[in-house]
């Protein structure tokens, strides 16, 4: 039996990814034609979130586990890339006390990104040793512990990470073009993973762990690979974040960001990459409207009160509402091409 | 006592029983025989309310539709389920106490003691965790637990499954005793011979349909059923 480069499901996945890529390009095009310059930042942030949520789908979605550590991996990559790429002259000011000569060198952005990916991947593999062996609930709790540990290290080692203060002076080497390319790449990669043998196995384990084990699926290995792959998505998002903003701090890489991205994935549906994309776009749009409300805008001559916590409240309601009324999210098991071609998937597992 | 008509049972989207009629008169023992996957356990699940079903199930003329598991039990349907399902982390006594959970009269302790003396082996192990009992002992415990609520009808799902022949004899002797005490019993079995012997009336189920039914006398010793029960026809 010859192994083809792509299996038939993956080929269909490429068609689906192409459709999603067109959607992304349409959004970018619309911005280029009619957008205002302040919206570039919003769009960029949305695309960074999109990479994270698609990366979440890889482990959390295919395996049906809840994990909350992604903001930590994003932070690790963002700091690693930032420290590598920032010119030594700037670091002498921003990180005067940094140990191990961290403030004495600088790298080309591409090598910096590569170093950040490798560091995050290695930490992903180390944590994966645990994550792949634990049971469903423990995976969630330990992922929170990872988030807390990493965050406390960011806060504590101010000589390296500046804690809640800004680490500034990072060269702003990325623009909307770069992130658009990365988003499309992420979507294609996530789709190919989902339809690969490994992705299929993970989904089989999610449906019936005991049965899948009996069929000889190596659960630990499948989880391990998916876990490391998903950390690389988070790393990519973190690097893109640092390379665009020019300053980073520890605060965004914590629970609020986790709430946001998890809600995005849940709304779209854990099992589908298309769901991840739709969920991200919908919530990003909704949040822009709410943020505007939260600042206490003037509506029809009436000044609304400032409502801190409104966006969080609505995110929570989205999560609970989806779980209660549509636990598989907007998309369920379907991908975009299943809707466009109205094709009944034979692989769909009835529950 | 129990009247079932046009019963269809579903497991998710799959229809496991395709419309059957069964009648269990008061004080009788009715056996439901059939091969694996015939729909016997599904039928019992529909009666207890643990599976989704359409059609009507009446207990003493009362339609059970819309009643949940607990209310059907309180109406008088008690089951000794397949696989026995004793609470392995509870003691023998506590298992029996659970059987009498819905009772509020003062006779619970007395009835439990009565069962413990009926099965001395359970009496000896009353404070031992039920998970340590042998299969046969667990079966006796399950039946005792099911009867402690003083049900109107007892459903027995494969009580002989996985037991040694000698123990099977004891289980059927107990069923025989219960019948003489006037208990109404719906018995699901694969062990056709023994079931026909204790039953007054027999239904044979295959592929979710009743293929044959009649007084147990018509079935002889059950050997003629071999083809139907195993699905092998000569």
């Amino acid at each position, binding site marked *: 039996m010859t192994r083809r480069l792509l299996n038939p499901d993956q080929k269909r996945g490429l068609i689906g990814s192409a459709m999603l890529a067109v959607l992304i390009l349409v959004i970018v095009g619309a911005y280029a034609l009619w957008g205002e310059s302040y919206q570039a930042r919003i769009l960029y942030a949305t695309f960074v979130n999109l990479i994270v949520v698609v990366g979440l789908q890889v482990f959390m979605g295919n395996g*049906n586990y*809840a994990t909350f550590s992604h903001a930590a991996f994003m932070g690790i990559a963002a700091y690693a890339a930032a420290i590598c790429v920032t010119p030594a002259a700037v670091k002498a000011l921003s990180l005067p006390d940094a140990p191990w000569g961290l403030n004495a060198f600088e790298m080309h952005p591409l090598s910096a990104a590569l170093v950040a990916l490798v560091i995050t991947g290695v930490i992903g593999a180390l944590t994966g*040793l*645990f994550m792949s*062996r*634990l*049971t*469903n*609930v*423990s995976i*969630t*709790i*330990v992922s*929170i*512990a990872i988030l*807390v*540990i990493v965050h*406390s*290290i960011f*806060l504590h080692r101010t000589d390296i990470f500046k804690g809640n203060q800004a680490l500034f002076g990072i060269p702003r080497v990325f623009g909307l073009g770069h992130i658009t390319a990365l988003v499309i790449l992420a979507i294609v990669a996530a789709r190919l993973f989902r339809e690969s043998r490994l992705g299929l196995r993970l989904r089989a384990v999610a449906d019936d*762990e*005991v049965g899948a084990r009996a069929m000889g699926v190596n659960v630990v290995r499948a989880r391990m690979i998916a876990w490391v792959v998903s950390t690389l998505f988070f790393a990519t998002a973190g690097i893109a974040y640092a390379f665009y903003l020019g300053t980073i701090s520890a605060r965004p890489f914590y629970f609020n960001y986790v*709430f946001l991205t*998890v*809600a995005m994935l*849940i709304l779209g549906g854990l099992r589908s990459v298309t769901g991840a994309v739709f969920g991200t776009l919908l919530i990003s749009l909704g949040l822009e409207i709410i943020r505007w409300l939260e600042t206490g805008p003037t509506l029809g001559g009436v000044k609304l009160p400032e*409502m*801190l*916590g*409104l966006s*969080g*409240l609505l995110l*929570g*309601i*989205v*999560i*609970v509402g989806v*779980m*209660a009324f549509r*636990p598989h999210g907007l998309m369920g098991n379907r991908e975009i091409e299943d809707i466009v071609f109205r094709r009944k998937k034979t692989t769909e597992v009835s529950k | 006592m129990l009247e079932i008509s046009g019963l269809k049972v579903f497991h998710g989207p799959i229809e496991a029983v395709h419309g059957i009629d069964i009648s269990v008169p008061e004080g009788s023992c009715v056996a439901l025989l059939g091969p694996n996957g015939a729909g016997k356990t599904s039928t019992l699940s529909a009666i207890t309310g*643990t599976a989704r079903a359409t059609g009507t199930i009446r207990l003493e003329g009362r339609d059970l539709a819309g009643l*949940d*598991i*607990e209310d059907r*039990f309180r109406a008088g349907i*008690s*089951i000794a*389920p397949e696989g026995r*399902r004793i*609470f*392995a*982390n*509870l003691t023998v006594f506590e298992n029996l*106490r*659970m*059987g009498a*959970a*819905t009772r509020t009269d003062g006779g619970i302790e007395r009835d439990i003691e009565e069962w413990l003396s009926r099965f001395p082996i359970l009496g000896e192990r009353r404070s031992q965790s039920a998970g340590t009992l042998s299969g046969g002992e667990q079966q006796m415990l399950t039946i005792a*637990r099911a009867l402690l*609520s003083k049900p109107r009808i007892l459903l027995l799902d494969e009580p002989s499954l996985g037991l040694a022949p000698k123990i099977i004899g004891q289980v059927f002797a107990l069923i025989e005793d219960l019948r003489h005490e006037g208990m109404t019993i719906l018995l699901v079995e694969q062990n056709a011979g023994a079931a026909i012997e204790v039953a007054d009336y027999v239904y044979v189920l295959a592929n979710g349909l009743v293929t044959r039914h009649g007084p147990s006398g018509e079935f002889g010793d059950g050997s003629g059923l071999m083809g139907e029960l195993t699905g092998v026809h000569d």
Partner: protein
Amino acid sequence: MDYAAQQLLNALSFGAEYALIAVGLAIVFSIMGLVNFAHGEVIAFGGYSMAVVGTVVTGNPLVLMAAVLIACVSVSLLLERVAFRTVRKADITTGLLTAFGVSIILQNLYLLLGSPRPISATQFIFLDRTLLIGPVHVSSLQIYETVTTIAAILFLTLFLKRSYLGIAMRAASRDFQMVRLCGIRANRVVATAFAISGLLAGLACIFIMARRGSVTPHMGFDPVLTAFIACVLGGFGSLPGAVLGGFILGFLEVGVLVLLPQTAGGLAQAAVFLVVALLLFWRPDGILTPATEKGDKL
């Protein structure tokens, strides 16, 4: 001598607090497979209730303690009714994410209706005095905490062993459907689990308020996270495991604080979690794993 006794009592009282919370998490999980992320918000609700009753009604500490306990039990029951009942039959991840959502909703409600800043409620601070027992200085709060926890665990054990509902709860942790097939109402068993969980959260809340003297939207987060870790370490869903895990975490935390240099104080939690991670590598399912088969809970 003084130092060692103080640290021992520290460890015991930390462990007691974690055990109280961890048992509350474990009892709900053992019965309906729900990982209750909103437990910390139940504790915070107790704190807010205390602040409100304390300013509007009375400052009497005994009344306030009763108010905290009632508030925690009520909100716990309310959450079960409005949020968790709909996902009772769902898989673990769905239930977990629902609880996560509920937790976010409550935190943000506290932000919207209360304040992101601490609201002071100091009526329980009198519990925390320095006592001189022989030559040893100890904190009275820590003694109360340890004793109360041990008493609560004893009462709970008695309830689970002796009362008919307690026996039903133990049975339900193994085979909930069979419990229903014995005519015991599922809603009653689940509600009892949430009531106990809320009561234990209320006790923890009283001690936390006695130590902090103020309430914030996130006050329950840290202790509940540690209690979750305790549950994982002890074996998720096992009540003895939750108690054991809670006390192990208490001792680990004090051990780390004693051993780690002062400058690394901010990393104490990280160090504790790392030790737990190594323990989990040794026993991925926890120390006292409940022997439940993987399968449907209801």
